[in-house]
């Protein structure tokens, strides 16, 4: 058994590059997803019915589709529109678009639950437009939605593992390679499991940090 872990250790470069890919992929798609979500959320709440409806169909649609099948669609489908992407980019696109829908719904929920009065006070004190959004609406929104966004980030990390199927060299893919090269399945995959656990613990630590900030401001 110790010998098995020694083999995994000897392949640490492969594993670390997998971990790096998983991390970069997750962070990039979380950021890009949030940015898209910030566009989608106002649209979801828009008074223009057709716009709200269109975004609602997209958001609810994504929430009903398994990520793996969606990733296949993006991977196989984009070329038919003349877009040629490598595994890495199409994985990133799939992860980002998919989770943007979830994040938009999270932000909408948090937005709807915000009390009206501070916003009205902001308007009364002369804030408007982007400044109102940035200074008055956004901070409490992010604090309130922080824990749920954190959960979604964990979901993104976990969904990124699906991309092993389109041969994206992320953490699970690296563990698979090590296992097939040396036949040390337990050592290879349990190491991957604990690395995923570590990533999630880091995210959870971030969430509880946000929670402490939020608790002081309630």
């Amino acid at each position, binding site marked *: 058994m110790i010998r098995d872990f020694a083999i995994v250790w000897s392949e640490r470069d492969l594993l670390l590059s997998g971990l790096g890919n998983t991390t970069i992929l997750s962070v990039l798609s979380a950021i890009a997803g949030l940015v898209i979500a910030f566009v989608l959320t106002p649209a979801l709440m828009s008074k223009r019915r057709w716009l709200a409806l269109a975004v609602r169909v997209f958001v609810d649609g994504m929430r*009903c*589709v398994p*990520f*793996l*099948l969606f990733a296949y669609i993006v991977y196989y489908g984009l070329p038919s529109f003349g877009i040629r992407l490598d595994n890495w980019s199409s994985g990133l696109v799939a992860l980002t678009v998919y989770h943007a829908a979830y994040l938009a719904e999270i932000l909408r929920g948090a937005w709807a639950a915000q009390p009206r009065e501070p916003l009205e006070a902001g308007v009364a004190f002369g804030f408007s437009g982007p400044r109102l959004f940035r200074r008055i609406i956004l901070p409490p929104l992010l604090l309130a939605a922080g824990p749920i966004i954190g959960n979604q980030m964990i979901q993104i990390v976990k969904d990124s593992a699906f991309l092993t*199927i389109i041969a994206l060299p992320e953490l*699970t893919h690296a563990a698979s390679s090590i296992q097939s090269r040396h036949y040390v399945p337990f050592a290879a*995959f349990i190491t991957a499991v604990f690395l995923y*656990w570590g990533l999630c613990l880091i995210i959870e630590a971030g969430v509880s940090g946000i929670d402490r900030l939020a608790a002081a401001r309630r």
Partner: protein
Amino acid sequence: MSTADILAILQGAVVTVTLSFVGILIGLPIGLGLALLRWADVPVIARIVAVYVSVLRATPLVTLLLLLFFALPNVGIAIGPVSAAILALVMNTSAFNCEVWRAALMNFPKEQYEAAQSVGMHASLRFRRIVLPQIVRVSLPGLVNEMSLLIKVTPVLAVVGVVDITRAAVRIGAETYEPLPPFLVAIAMYAPIVFALVSLQRFIERRQLAAEAA
């Protein structure tokens, strides 16, 4: 794509959904059991359960599945793709269900529990008659949510060779040299099932809100 192909995907979908529900049915009571162990704060065991839940919640289903499928035979436990799939689903969903049940238990009003004690209900009666009916109600939306999450990750079981919706779609795509259509068909079959669960969850939440408002 022929009608036979569509039927093959449908068959795959049935396999996937069946496996999900088997996983849910087994995982639900196990999750409750784990939550009770943590709630009762059984020494050592409660700690072990906490770590188990934390690790399992962080582990992607694919990784867990590959671990079970390849490593268990290595230690002398023969396991087929379907058994490995069910075991992985149960381990995954029991950890999530444990958290839903535990949240309901932690928020259970102490005074109500004491009221049951004060009329002389012993522990198992208190749990069966007073606690359980209420935590089931409180946990229901969360549990249904977990179900839809589980159903959404189940298509990954194909990775160890379960002949499910994904495998059927991949095979047909390879045969016809048109990979996209079979996946669109697969999604068209799968999405309504998830949609039904999501709607069920919203329906339950709305009904409970309405009941509280009344």
